[in-house]
């Protein structure tokens, strides 16, 4: 949706019906649609919860018919750290936006950089988690838990990755001084998307990691 961000409507010529910039309405509309996307993925996870025929399982140990023993696979402390950083990044992007609106390039570049680092850490954490799970014997096709877990968190991770790419693009623009206060909407849209991705994680985290 980067494209939307920069597609200038002719609406700029005259006042819009709502007084809001069309791009802002568009990003909200897109987020509304995305809600259904994640609602469906989360529902799919819940529907398949506890229906795996074989392990490894998220919260329970499992011994395979061959006698191999599997621990509960989820690593909650690491993911909690990632969750916390993702939440903080929402604060950072607000500070970055505030910097952009005030015209403080230092605040903008600094806080935006912090946001990006948090996002990269989160994606990195997920890459580590996935690799670790595969190593432990949980692949996409192993059981319904693996399938719905990788699908749900994977698509969330993809959204975070796209968000990071979007923010890095803006960060480069900010470095070059191309986000003056008059163009802070470009960042605001990315920030709205970023908040949305965080909020989705706040639902996924308890659903997947905390509810047994």
């Amino acid at each position, binding site marked *: 949706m*980067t*494209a*939307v*961000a*920069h*597609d*200038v*409507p*002719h*609406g*700029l*010529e*005259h006042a*819009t*019906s*709502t007084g*809001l910039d*069309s791009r802002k*309405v*568009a990003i909200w*509309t*897109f987020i*509304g*649609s*995305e809600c*259904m*996307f994640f609602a*469906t*993925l989360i529902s*799919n996870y819940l*529907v*398949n919860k506890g*229906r*795996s*025929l074989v392990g490894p399982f998220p919260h329970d140990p499992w011994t395979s018919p061959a006698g191999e023993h599997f621990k509960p696979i989820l690593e909650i402390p690491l993911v909690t750290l990632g969750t916390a950083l993702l939440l903080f990044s929402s604060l950072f992007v607000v500070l970055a936006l505030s910097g952009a609106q005030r015209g403080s390039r230092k605040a903008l570049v600094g806080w935006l950089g912090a946001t990006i680092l948090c996002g990269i850490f989160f994606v990195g954490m997920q890459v580590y988690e996935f690799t670790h799970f595969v190593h432990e014997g949980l692949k*996409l*096709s192993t*059981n*319904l838990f*693996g*399938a*719905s877990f990788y*699908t749900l968190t994977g*698509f969330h991770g993809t959204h975070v990755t796209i968000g990071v790419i979007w923010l890095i693009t803006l960060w480069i623009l900010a470095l070059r001084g191309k986000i003056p206060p008059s163009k802070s909407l470009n960042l605001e849209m990315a920030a709205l998307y970023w908040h949305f991705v965080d909020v989705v994680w706040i639902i996924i985290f308890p659903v997947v990691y905390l509810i047994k």
Partner: protein
Amino acid sequence: MATRVLDQHRAHAAAHGETSGLWSWITTVDHKRIGILYGSTAFFFFLLGGVEALLLRIQLGTPDNTFLSPERYNQLFTMHGTTMIFLAIMPLSAMFFNYMIPLLIGARDVAFPRLNAFSYWVFLLGGLFLNAGWFFGAAPDQGWFGYANLTSRQFSPGPNVDFWMFGLQILGIASLAAAVNFFVTIINLRAPGMTLMRMPMFVWMSFITQVLLLLAFPVITVALILLMFDRFFGTHFFVPSGGGDPILWQHLFWIFGHPEVYILILPAFGIISEVLPVFSRKPLFGYAAMVFSGVFIAFLGFGVWSHHMFSTAMGPIADTFFALSTMLIAVPTGVKIFNWIGTMWGGSLQFRTPMYFAVAFIAMFIIGGLSGVMHSSPPADLQQTDTYFVVAHFHYVLFGGSIFGLTAGAYYWWPKMFGRMLDERLGKIHFWLMLIGFNVTFFPMHWLGLNGMPRRVYTYPAGLGFELLNQLETVGSFLLALGFLVLLINMFQAWRRPRNAPADPWNGATLEWSIPSPPQEFNFPETPEVHGRDALWEMKRTRGPLPEPARVSGAGIHLPNPSYWPAVAALGVAAVFVGVMLLGHIGPWGIVAGVALLFFGVYRWAFEPAG
């Protein structure tokens, strides 16, 4: 900014020969041209779907027929349904969204012209992708709702289902991009004075359609992703042997699929609500009730999906809930029908071709609605579901409803879009052939269904009593086809006549009739001011008959630049899915190339220099 001042562009374009020709169509961001692209592509697919239907009808014309092989028949009925829904009715509606919404609300273009071009190109590529299976002898053959677990790799090993699955996925991207665009356009680009409750009813129904698209398509997107994982990566979401549940597919599909039905019919509701007042010379009866019944239908549309699944044994509580919610939908639908008749009541009915189709729409839609109530009752539906009774029902709704409505719209807006009038006499021949052909084709299906003919059978044995009515239906389908042949002749003749249609041939009520036919690139030389519903009637009432609007130079008007990056990005989208299809042959490199092309297109688009 990516806008341009018109006269400069004109000079530039003239120097480079860009105003017409293929390149100008590829790079166009003008909502009117994109509307015509949508319309012509969709009409082509409509004819294709129609030919597929004729082949099906020939096969069913006689018992134990071997005109088509079973696998060819299954491919044809799958592609007929998929084509008519996703490649004909939806994009024909999109043609009217594109061409008409900005004109009806007094805007210069849609909110995001390049995103609009992107939607079209993705739609075109999705349609081609879906049909590409024909060239490999592997067209989709699992039915348009693709019930699991028939679609699993075990039972559908070929690429047939893959063409369908990825084709729909691509089309979904096009629909979602367009839905965001039109949602924002209607919210944000209305002319001064056009409050929500002054919007033309077509704009209202289109608006509700966009909301349905935005909320329903993500669900099918996820369902198709899960199916892709099952087929390509060995998961078991819908595979019983791995603990998965094929009924989950049905739920996900119909949570999308039922709102989809309203996505198909609401634009037609809107068109009828424009045509009837104009040709009754009388405003729409019960405007507010029409708006709220539309909203109510859309809302209920998300709470009835399981009425497609009564035969799956959901238990009495679920059956009761979905039966009652389904019946409830009949109330706002009835309100609409009564209000349309109320619009005609006491009017001075002008029976021009669009009015013929609009009135037939009401008559046919009543039948479709009533048979819908008949199978809202689960025990009765247990006999009717998966029979020709259901086939009759949804053709009365989608053909008798959507297609009649869209045809009414085509005859109504044709002079505005092409500057030429369609012939009235040919139009009425088309109408009678279509009305009679339609009823001869589909009405007997009610009887066949109740008398035991299941749907989707490639043939039936003699002796079950199905022979006579099937033969009749086949004759009817050719009458229907003849009707569209007359339309083609009409279109061809109109194309050869000079562009001399007046700006306002029907004494129209809405803003598009205040500007020349066809409109100039910038639509309105100056933004109109709206002082009430039926904005143009309001103007005529206060100012008296309006003179024929002159074509003006439009110098100084800012318009968006043409761009080919949306088409490049669309190619990237299609390439990603081609890459997935080729995963087993060339590894992930196809996907990588597709993603790279997509990102390249999007970045060039995003950073396109100012005009």
